[in-house]
């Protein structure tokens, strides 16, 4: 008989962003039980994590186990003792022949356990094992921990309850509807569960909630915002979007500020007009079915008006003091206790911008870059740091290159984010990030494992992207103050960038970096060449030969230094290799690889490097060493993993 299974963990509102991972985790934990099923489905709302499976057996399959007893030669008491332990008579035992001899044996049959019993025993542990980034206790010290208090549990196999208790809650067949629109206790079965919830204003499927929001906004030009949509999908059980409006006079404020207020503070979608400009409207998603009297719309409109008024108040107040005049105030803003104030940091950024090659405008942008930290607007909307400075700089008549550089200097904030749009911005961004990295490493604030409170990985990744994609051929290693931990940290970030972000193979990255990686623009160029070369038929055999050469040199303890004595070269493959080498030395490997490879192969085929005569041997080693050195400026080809 096959049965449906329903598990619903009823919880007080779970933080929206944790829900998808929690479901995935619950799924994995269920799989580990190894109960067979035909299909499984996971769903969630803020108040419930739900696992539904179809086709579970009522009972696990019976199992058989062969138990070996004493040897055939054992005394009768031992045989009787074994039989008694198995609950049978000695004559029911069989004799089994094994490589070690003949033994008494018994086939022990265990009836399969009831699936319901297995579930009842396992579910409390499974539920408490679901991973959440931050948990709490609520039944008292030492009590179970979960993301929020568990208030009810539905656990049913077919029509039957799977009985267990967790945190003082008994599993049952009663679910709970929407907080305000549904009933508090609703009897369900696995068959009618979803429909019963729907009757009580709970849409179980996230996809359906998503579609309901999208559908409700059809015809409204909402600025697409998938992340906000997901937040709202997991913040509601019965989402209904409504559109409100605000006074068009607020459109005088910068769009960035208006959108931040709407999105980050109010979780509203912003709305565009036909030309793609911000319209004096917003869309919010309620967690109820309708707003017939317009209470919710008007309430949200008033909240937004107050917020916009605040922003306008700050915007106007901040303008009374120019950015440039705020520089001394930065002495009172801590960057980091051991690294001084933002005034100190600004001085360092300016010096670094100059060192990197930034010109007057870039230095000007660096000078003003942190001044917005003392504005009311940034104190209120910290996520707008940089942007606000840029906007004020523009309003205060700074050149485009300067205000844009200030505006962009926190970019790129992720792998996908754009670089600062102009060179000045790239210099300031680089200098700011490098300064943070150098300072933090200097005072021992180094990321460990998943702990990276200062976002140093992101900063280093930003440095790498700006250098490579901004084509800034500066020697990175010279900028790291000889701090070996910082060098190693950057080495990891450079590898990560070229492998994970750019898709180069790991051995290509290792090979190219082994030939140097201080100049990342050059590194990228060499990687592109290796990638192309690798597709040619001569490449891997030659790489294998290079590896052989390196091994020979290592074994011989040969470190080079001598010159090749032509008179000692043996006519034939050795002399031919040398002749070929003198012809192609100094040329890019792409053009010569097809000529070089057969010569090298032939050399190894016919010539014994380890010649009895030490002069000849040294001369051969010198030849190989010279050859390897010649072609290793682009990459250490012996790092390439070959099939041969």
């Amino acid at each position: 008989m096959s049965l449906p299974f329903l598990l619903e963990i009823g919880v007080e509102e779970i933080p929206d962003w944790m829900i998808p991972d929690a479901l995935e985790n619950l799924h994995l934990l269920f799989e580990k039980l190894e109960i067979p099923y035909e299909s499984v489905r996971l769903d969630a709302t803020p108040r419930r994590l739900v696992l539904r499976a179809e086709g579970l057996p009522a009972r696990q399959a019976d199992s058989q186990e062969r138990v070996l007893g004493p040897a055939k030669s054992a005394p009768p008491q031992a045989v009787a003792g074994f039989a008694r332990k198995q609950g049978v008579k000695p004559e029911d035992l069989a004799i089994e022949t094994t490589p070690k001899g003949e033994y008494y044996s018994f086939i022990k049959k265990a009836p399969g356990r009831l699936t319901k019993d297995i579930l009842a025993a396992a579910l409390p542990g499974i539920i408490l094992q679901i991973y959440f980034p931050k948990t709490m206790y609520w039944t008292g010290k030492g009590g179970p921990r979960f993301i929020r208090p568990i208030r009810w549990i539905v656990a049913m196999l077919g029509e039957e309850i799977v009985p267990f208790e967790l945190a003082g809650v008994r599993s049952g067949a009663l679910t709970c509807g929407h907080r305000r629109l549904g009933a508090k206790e609703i009897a369900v079965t696995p068959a009618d569960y979803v429909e019963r919830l729907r009757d009580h204003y709970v849409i179980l499927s996230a996809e359906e909630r998503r579609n309901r929001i999208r559908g409700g906004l059809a015809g409204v030009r909402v600025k697409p915002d998938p992340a906000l949509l997901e937040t709202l999908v997991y913040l509601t059980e019965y989402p209904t979007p409504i559109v409100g409006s605000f006074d068009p006079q607020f459109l005088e404020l910068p769009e960035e500020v208006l959108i931040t207020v709407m999105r980050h503070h109010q979780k509203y979608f912003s709305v565009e007009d036909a030309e793609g400009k911000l319209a004096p409207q917003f869309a919010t998603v309620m967690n109820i079915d309708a707003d017939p009297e317009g209470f919710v719309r008007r309430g949200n409109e008033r909240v937004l008006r107050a917020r916009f008024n605040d922003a306008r108040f700050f915007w106007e107040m901040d303008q009374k003091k120019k950015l440039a005049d705020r520089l001394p105030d930065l002495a009172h803003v801590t960057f980091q206790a051991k690294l001084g104030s933002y005034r100190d940091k600004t001085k360092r950024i300016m010096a670094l911008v100059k060192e990197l090659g930034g010109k007057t405008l870039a230095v000007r942008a660096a000078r003003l870059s942190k001044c917005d930290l003392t504005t009311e607007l940034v104190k209120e909307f910290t996520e707008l740091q940089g942007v606000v400075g840029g906007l004020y700089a523009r309003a205060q008549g700074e050149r485009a290159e300067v205000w844009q550089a200030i505006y962009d200097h926190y970019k790129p904030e992720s792998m996908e984010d754009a670089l600062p749009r102009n060179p000045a911005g790239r210099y300031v961004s680089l200098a700011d990030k490098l300064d943070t990295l150098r300072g933090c490493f200097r005072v021992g604030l180094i990321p460990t494992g998943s702990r990276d409170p200062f976002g140093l990985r992101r900063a280093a990744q930003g440095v790498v992207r700006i250098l490579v994609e901004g084509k800034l051929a500066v020697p990175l290693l010279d900028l790291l103050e000889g701090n070996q931990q910082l060098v190693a940290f950057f080495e990891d970030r450079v590898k990560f960038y070229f492998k994970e972000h750019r898709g180069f193979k790991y051995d290509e990255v290792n090979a190219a970096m082994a030939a140097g990686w201080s100049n990342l623009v050059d590194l990228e160029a060499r990687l592109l060449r290796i990638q192309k070369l690798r597709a040619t038929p001569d490449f891997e055999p030659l790489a294998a030969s290079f590896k052989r050469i390196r091994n020979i040199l290592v074994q011989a303890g040969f470190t080079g230094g001598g010159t090749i004595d032509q008179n000692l070269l043996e006519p034939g493959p050795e002399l031919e290799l040398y002749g070929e080498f003198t012809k192609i030395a100094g040329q890019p490997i792409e053009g010569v690889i097809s000529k070089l490879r057969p010569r090298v192969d032939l050399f190894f085929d016919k010539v014994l490097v380890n010649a009895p005569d030490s002069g000849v041997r040294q001369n051969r080693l010198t030849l190989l060493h010279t050859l390897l050195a010649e072609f290793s400026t682009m990459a250490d080809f012996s790092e390439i993993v070959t099939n041969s």
Partner: protein
Amino acid sequence: MQSFQEIIFKLKQYWADRGAIIQEPYDVEVGAGTMCPETFLRVLGPEPYRVAYVQPSRRPADGRYGDNPNRLYKHSQLQVILKPSPDDIMEQYLASLEAIGIDLRQHDIKFEEDNWESPTLGAWGIGWQVMLDGLEVTQFTYFQQCGGIDLDLVPAELTYGLERLIAFLQVKDSVYDIEWAKGVSYGDVRHREELQYSVYNFEMADIATLWKLFGLHEGEAARLLAAYDPKSPDKRRFPLLPAYDHVLKCSNLFNTLDSRGAISVTERVGVIQRVRRLAVGVAQAWVNQQEVAA
């Protein structure tokens, strides 16, 4: 229209009906209702307790000379502590909103993740900000630690922001237009205070004097804490509550100095640490003192 004070009466009555003691505001300046002994100390230990009180909360840096419609130097919080938290706390909370005339079928309520933490008190909890039609009206927290101590019973703390909530109910765009009592506005009652404290906190507070006061209160709290003997048979009479008042004084002086721009980069973290050490010291001694009482 229900006045400011009528709504407060109703909320107090609502929680009194559910077994809460109605306390009056604490008479030492605090930055939040959580800092009052009725919360900070009462949540410690194994004794159940329920209490509600309106606490004027002072945040010197938030003062705006009475010019800003939404920001105040001193705002009022209705603080409710239910220790331990009842299982139906969410329903009880929602019903309290209905008790002051909010028809929850006509309004949108969301519980958005918002965990609370106070470094100066060594306290933190897990919870939500409660959004009513997009307005944050309550902070809802399950306390986990206080004074660095894991709590025996987990209390629910509800903090209603009264000015915001009531401006919403009365449909006022400025808190100063709230009707406090019939014919008397919030501005009539409080505007002068907002203006004068802003002037004092931002312009006239004497920094040297405030530092001196800070040092005196800190010294007195530290002296008392050092004198507390956990083994004394008489420890029940030891004045930990007065010691805590001195800690609160320090906290308020710190906030005032901060708004005055008098706390330098290097000092800030250190001063917070100093206050925290005292607060944690009182909490630990308090737990010890209760053990003998119980």
